[in-house]
């Protein structure tokens, strides 16, 4: 005669998931010793749990040709990356900075930034406003001019990608000139923004100096983790 029905399926699941207290666990373990059917039920539940883990141990990576699903989210959400990063950095400890309040005062910013060691700075642009594009380039140049061993990256996403798009940038020559004078500067485009624009049928040819990263947020996270100074324009 089996005692297995004494234990509900919910209780056995809770046992498998370590949700029971010591006394309840003892009761089940004691019963299992003399009840093969109960042991079988537990074995099947545990197998089901292991199989689920096994089935998603390795999941396929995305190979995007076009961003076919983005349309169901609003453009505002997709464009919130900037706010995201600004809030993130602020929340993280108020030690990074936004350059929003410092347009036209790149020199003052660089004075403050030279305190950073090692000399690595990531400048993030997400706006196509010409004064913000210019501020990003001013800041990069000022920093490169003053710290010869500096590494500077300008990363552009959302509307800021216009800085690096061949058809839209007003600064193609200036970018080429900066790059020709400084080996340690990089101009980086957000791959996700590019995919979104491609999905909308837009031409997204970049200036020759631009490299592409998968997503701006991942790049920023990686650089900050590596100790770079992050500045959002």
């Amino acid at each position, binding site marked *: 005669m089996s005692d297995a029905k004494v234990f509900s*399926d*919910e209780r056995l*699941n*809770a046992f498998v*998931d370590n*949700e029971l207290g010591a006394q309840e666990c003892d009761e089940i373990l004691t019963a299992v010793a003399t009840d093969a059917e109960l042991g079988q039920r537990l074995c*099947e*539940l545990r*197998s*089901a*749990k*292991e*199989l*689920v*883990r*096994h*089935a*998603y141990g*390795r*999941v*396929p*990576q*995305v190979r*995007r040709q076009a*961003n*076919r*699903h*983005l349309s*169901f*989210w609003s453009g505002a*959400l*997709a464009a*919130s*990356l900037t*706010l*995201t*990063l600004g*809030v*993130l950095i602020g*929340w*993280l*400890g108020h*030690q*990074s*900075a936004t350059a929003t309040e410092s347009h036209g005062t790149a020199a003052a910013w660089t004075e*403050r*930034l030279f*305190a*950073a*060691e090692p000399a690595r700075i990531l400048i993030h642009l997400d706006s196509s406003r010409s004064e913000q594009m210019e501020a990003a380039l001013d800041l990069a140049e000022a920093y490169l001019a003053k710290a010869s061993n500096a590494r500077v990256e300008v990363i552009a996403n959302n509307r800021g990608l216009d800085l690096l798009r061949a058809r839209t940038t007003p600064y193609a020559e200036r970018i080429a000139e900066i790059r020709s004078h400084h080996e340690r500067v990089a101009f980086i485009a957000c791959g*996700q923004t590019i995919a979104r624009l491609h999905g909308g049928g837009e031409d997204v040819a970049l200036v020759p100096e631009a490299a592409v990263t998968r*997503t701006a*947020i*991942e790049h920023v*996270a*990686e650089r*900050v*983790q590596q*100790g770079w*100074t992050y500045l959002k324009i």
Partner: protein
Amino acid sequence: MKWLPSREQRELMEQIKAGRGRLYRVAFAWCHDAALADDLAQEALTRGLSRLEQLRESAKLMSWLFAILNRCWIDHLRARRRDVDDELLSELPSDLPGPDSHAERQETVSRVRRAIEALPLGQRQVVTLVDLEGFSYAEVAEVLEIPIGTVMSRLCRARGSLRGLLMEGATAQPRLRSVK
């Protein structure tokens, strides 16, 4: 003035980077569509970070992000199925595409994914959060905004269905039993 990120900053950034992969894996288990899962994970991360000031305990970062992932998923389903309430949504079977070609090459993986996919959405969410992420029942209740009793009953029904489906497969193909 200190400009380098603090250890706390670096640790949280590391968690967030790692979190993207975890969000993606669970999103994939929910929808079985790699591109959609990637969008869901990215969206959850973006929404989450834009509201990061609402997170009071950094230790709860991941369960908080999974709760946002759940809302992104519901928003997506709502966009596809208008005029359906949340409770009914959770009971709907999937009509999304099946496992992709990667899984097709792995028989057991493919069979389990099909079994998961055949579960009603609410059960699929609970079983993947418990089994893949190791969340406690209380955490799952918080993430999905449902009572803990519902978590337990959905999990119970999900495992019951999986046992049935997988044992059927095992009868047809005894090799399944060799998988722990």
